[in-house]
């Protein structure tokens, strides 16, 4: 049976709903994980039974980096094909949060109206709950070493991802340029199909420092063996499908967004099978709004500002390398979330050239790194509101747009000060 049709979970669902109302009542807009805790205690099978019960099954997106963007892209592509999609919010990627999210939509039968579920999972949490899930498709983005979390070295991350991939019932979609994932593709059960995607040698050659993976596979996909990214220039990219080349417009500049798009397209293809239409997929992808905080362009006081969120050294490096050359107005805000200042030192920031203001609680530490990388820093202003006001007030630059590079904490403070709606769905 594909879905749960009994009323087995009805009592737990009702209790969960009551708790949810109470939690909201106590703290408007909050308390999202509490009902999940309650339901998971009363009916531990609820989460798995519901997630496994969608007609087109469950799709899991996991990996070190790019899961959030890839998931959003995949959902947009699937919806453009007419599917009704249940998906989680990034902050709700642990089982309680997921259960709470499910409670929002589930009927008393334990079934959710929808064709397919698409879940973003943290590699650690994914392995933890994957034991009970039977995803039809598992998509693996990459293995990167997060310097701030040195408990997880690359071997350990790869092992966690392998555990999740082993749960796939139909296909595993993987990044063939990532050596750990390419190796994993060689040892998967023959009962699942492996869909590979990757960039061409020409695209890779544009990035002398590589794409940020812990280990880059020695060879590229040969034509016809998987989806290929054949060109990236600014926000434009070309993807080679078996049926021909399609152009896409990325939600932000940067090779990592292009690879995220490639992952989403390849996963959509595995999920939809015959129904997949490259033209529909690429149109949907190109119509996506800029991803929140990542290459997002906002207008404040009549000035255009581009936001660049750096979450780890790899994304910092890729963002520095992807910046429009000659960008003359840059503000860098590194906050208290970067506990160890050496965290960003593997990054070569010299490409920034000139930074107008270094700000945030770690302003002096990032200014030190910039100085040693020969980047001129005009001003160090730890107070974020003061730095933002000074930065926004400057006349528009001649070259490039005003660019703010921030850590998650810097992003939070920036959004709060500029009065931009904060999106609690984004990981912060």
């Amino acid at each position, binding site marked *: 049976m594909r879905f749960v049709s009994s009323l087995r979970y009805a009592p737990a669902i009702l209790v969960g709903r009551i708790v949810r109302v109470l939690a909201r009542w106590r703290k408007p807009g909050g308390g999202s994980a509490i009902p999940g805790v309650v339901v998971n205690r009363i009916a531990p099978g609820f989460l798995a039974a519901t997630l496994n019960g969608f007609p087109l099954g469950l799709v899991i997106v996991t990996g070190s980096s790019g899961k959030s963007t890839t998931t959003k892209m995949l959902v947009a592509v699937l919806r453009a094909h007419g599917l009704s999609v249940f998906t989680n919010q990034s902050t709700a990627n642990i089982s309680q949060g997921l259960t709470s999210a499910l409670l929002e939509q589930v009927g008393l039968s334990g079934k959710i109206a929808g064709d397919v579920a698409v879940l973003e999972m943290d590699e650690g949490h994914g392995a933890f709950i994957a034991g009970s899930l039977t995803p039809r498709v598992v998509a693996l983005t990459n293995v990167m*070493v997060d*310097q701030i979390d*040195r*408990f997880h*070295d*690359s*071997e*350990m991350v790869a092992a966690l991802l392998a555990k999740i991939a082993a749960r796939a019932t139909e296909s595993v979609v993987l990044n063939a340029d990532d050596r750990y994932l390419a190796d994993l593709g060689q040892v998967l059960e023959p009962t699942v199909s492996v869909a590979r995607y990757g960039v061409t040698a020409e695209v890779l050659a544009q990035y002398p420092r590589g794409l940020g993976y812990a280990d880059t596979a020695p060879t590229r996909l040969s034509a016809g063996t998987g989806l290929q990214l054949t060109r990236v220039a600014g926000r434009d990219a070309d993807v080679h499908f078996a049926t021909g080349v399609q152009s896409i417009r990325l939600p932000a500049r940067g090779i990592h967004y292009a690879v995220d798009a490639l992952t989403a397209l390849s996963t959509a293809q595995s999920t939809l099978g015959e129904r997949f239409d490259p033209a529909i997929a690429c149109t949907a992808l190109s119509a996506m709004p800029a991803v929140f905080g990542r290459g997002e362009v906002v207008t404040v006081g009549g000035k255009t500002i581009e936001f660049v969120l750096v979450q780890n*050294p790899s994304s910092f490096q890729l963002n520095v390398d992807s910046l429009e050359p000659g960008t003359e107005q840059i503000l860098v805000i590194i906050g208290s979330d970067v*506990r*160890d*200042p*050496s*965290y*960003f*030192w*593997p990054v070569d920031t010299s490409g920034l050239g000139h930074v107008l203001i270094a700000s945030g609680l770690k302003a*002096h*530490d990032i*200014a*030190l*790194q910039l*100085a*040693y*990388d*020969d980047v001129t820093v005009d001003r*160090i202003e730890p107070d974020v509101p003061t730095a933002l006001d000074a930065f926004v007030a400057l006349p528009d630059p001649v070259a490039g747009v005003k660019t703010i590079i921030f850590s998650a904490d810097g992003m939070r403070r920036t959004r709060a000060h500029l009065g931009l709606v904060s999106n609690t769905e984004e990981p912060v």
Partner: protein
Amino acid sequence: MTATSLDRPFTVVSLLPRLLNTNGDAGNARVLAQRVRWSGHDARVVDVHTRADLPEHVDAVSIGSGTDAALLPARDALRTLVDELRVWSNSGVPVLAVGTGWELLSWGIDLADGSVLEGLGLVAGHAVPRAARATDDIIVASKYGRLIGFENHARDYVGAEASPLGRVLYGTGNADAPASGPQIEGLTMGEVFCTHLHGPVLARNPALADHLLKAAFGRLDLEYALGVTAESVDETARTARNQVAVRLGQSAE
């Protein structure tokens, strides 16, 4: 007669930066080279992964820290360079080793599974597992001033009691405070400096960087003079250190 300039670039060797740069400590090589440039001399960093990468002259050596998965390949790679390391440390070439880079220079590393990874045996002592990972800011009183950095290690270091880098004012260092005697951090042997401090330690603590540079310049019969840029950058480092010190209840310097 004392020369006033080098006839070749001042050369900092960065050992195994691919395996030993998880914490950004390979940046210490960048710090040394940049400070030499600011003092008016040509300088370069040479990344050494194998013997073939070794430059003819070596003025200073930096070894960073890596993940435990890299311990074995890093140890094996360092073993092929053990003669050079011995010559450098015996001839006063300043060597800075951080975290696992330091552990690999020791007698050995006791791993959590009970096995022992033999080290290069260049410095006294060895690394042993600690109950819980030490991850926090660390403040150390040393001959080179008050050093402030960030520590992040799952092993203690025993056997450095004879010549520590300094005394722990805040944090863990080589081990938790002993029942008697001072709580210490790091190890020194001639111009070999070993520490748990990330930051990178030389960027955060330019006094230690300049001590290494004076030693390196001394070998060349040259005078190291602080550059003008260094003065303003060091002011930034001082503010960064003071922020940590004040937050942890210590006085500003």
